[in-house]
């Protein structure tokens, strides 16, 4: 069976972001971009399923500007077999992304779709759930373990109180949590090999999907700064301050 992974190009998680002075967004010019860390985990999981003989082909899909091709190349260098780029300069919100992925999925017919639980830029945590809804498929979000057998996936999910395990019928969408696996680094030979792997390019128009944003971003601002930095000299002084100054204990 085929596995499809979606990979998003985001500002690298190590970069300290800066809000633009005109409040229209976050500075992205000359900023290091990388694959969303949760999507790396998705790629890794798909590769492990292929290595276990369960999955036969791993397709990496990215949506957005032309440079998303680099994100797909990263997935290919990790070991994915081929890529699909849905290229557009338009702003894509999760509902539109889910519709575009649905259109790609209807062409590719994967039996399992694995994507990150959230992107570390907009922190939306929506796309996987929306995609499975649009496809009429089951969903297993926040996965920390995936076991596939007999047309089902047994998925352990990270929930607020601990862990929960569900069984879902394939085809299905799984979203990844941090502890699912530790993604591999691409080796130099694999990076070279990835350059020859095929990437097909399409567009929202080509897929017949209206991607008009439903949310208008009115402004983006910096959060209020916290005034910290006071030090105390001893445990007794700390307890004293908490009791008499802060009055929280």
């Amino acid at each position, binding site marked *: 069976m085929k596995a499809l992974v979606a990979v998003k190009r985001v500002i690298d998680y190590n970069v*300290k*972001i800066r809000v633009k002075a005109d409040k229209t967004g976050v500075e992205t010019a000359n900023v290091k971009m990388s694959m969303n860390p949760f999507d790396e985990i998705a790629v890794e999981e798909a590769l492990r399923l292929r290595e276990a003989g369960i999955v036969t082909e791993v397709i990496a899909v990215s949506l957005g500007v032309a440079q998303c091709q680099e994100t797909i190349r990263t997935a290919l260098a990790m070991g994915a077999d081929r890529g699909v780029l849905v290229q557009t300069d338009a702003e894509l919100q*999760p*509902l539109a992304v889910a519709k575009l992925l649905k259109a790609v999925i209807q062409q590719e017919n994967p039996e399992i779709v694995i994507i990150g*639980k*959230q992107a*570390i*830029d*907009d*922190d939306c*945590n*929506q*796309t*996987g*759930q*929306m995609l*499975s*809804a649009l496809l009429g*498929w*089951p*969903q*297993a*979000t*926040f996965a920390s373990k995936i076991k596939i057998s007999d047309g089902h996936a047994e998925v352990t999910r990270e*929930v607020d*109180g*601990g*862990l*929960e*395990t*569900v*069984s879902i*019928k394939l085809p299905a969408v799984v979203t990844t*949590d*941090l*502890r699912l696996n530790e993604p591999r680094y691409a080796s130099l030979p694999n990076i070279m090999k990835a350059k020859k792997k095929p990437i097909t390019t399409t567009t929202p128009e080509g897929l017949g999907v209206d991607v008009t*944003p*439903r*949310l*208008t971003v*009115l*402004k*983006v*601002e910096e*959060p209020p700064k*916290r005034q*910290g*930095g*006071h*030090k*105390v000299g001893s*445990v*007794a002084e*700390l*307890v004293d*301050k*908490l009791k008499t100054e*802060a009055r*929280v*204990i």
Partner: protein
Amino acid sequence: MVALVVAEHDNSALKPATLNAVAAAKEIAGADIDVLVAGKDCRAVTEAAGKIAGVRRVLLADDGAYEHGLAENIAPLVVKLAENYSHLLAPATTSGKNLMPRVAALLDMMQISDISAVVSPDTFVRPIYAGNALQTVQSQDPIKVITVRGTAFPPVESTGGSAAIELVPPTGAAGLSEFLRAELSKSERPELTSARVIISGGRGMQSGDNFHLLEKVADKLGAAVGASRAAVDAGFVPNDYQVGQTGKIVAPELYIAVGISGAIQHLAGMKDSKVIVAINKDEEAPIFQIADYGLVGDLFKILPELADELERRQ
């Protein structure tokens, strides 16, 4: 403006996060708030929901299909009820985050995730980039599907209301998914997301065993125990302890960070706490920049001393 809040519960008790979601709904819809309880044999939850101050009506959908909160089963129910509402809200907990985008997509609406303020009934503030920026968005959709950051909305009173309870017909099981089992952490301590005091440990704790030093202090303060992602990744404690961008978002009265350096991802989960205390041996640790009270030193000496001092002054 009429809002429906999806209650969070475990069939026997209403989870406090529901009260924060109702608080957000109140800012949007005033008195016109209904609460949906979907579960199995959840009479007690329904009664608790009916007592929430400011709730007009409680809708009860009681069916085996809803027992474990499977999104595939509950989403169609919420979608069926949606036409009567301008706003659908749920807490931004793992269950709300699991359910609501599915509801939104079935309705062809774009969800507004994790709101931290209501500007107007169609405009909301939400944190992005791990809380390092705040985005104000206006929704063009006729029904607003929203998840609510609990720490941003002080809970409404859990008593004082007397809402009417109405049964709604269940929509049945979708037959796509099945609950197998849960392994929930058992703890006598308060839940992280609703605790008044939290004490968290980071990589500096060095091992899971050393967390008992935190627990001793937690016992004195009636505190919940949390952890940084580094401590979770190192295997010291389970993931449900995790406070941060990808873990739980908390804002207690008092947050004590022990052996935590203060990575952006951790700060994202706790920087709205009222008072922050940092205990770390590295005086350059970034956590001190946001801490109201910093104590530089060896946590293995400081924690027992702190437990003793709290005991002495109780």
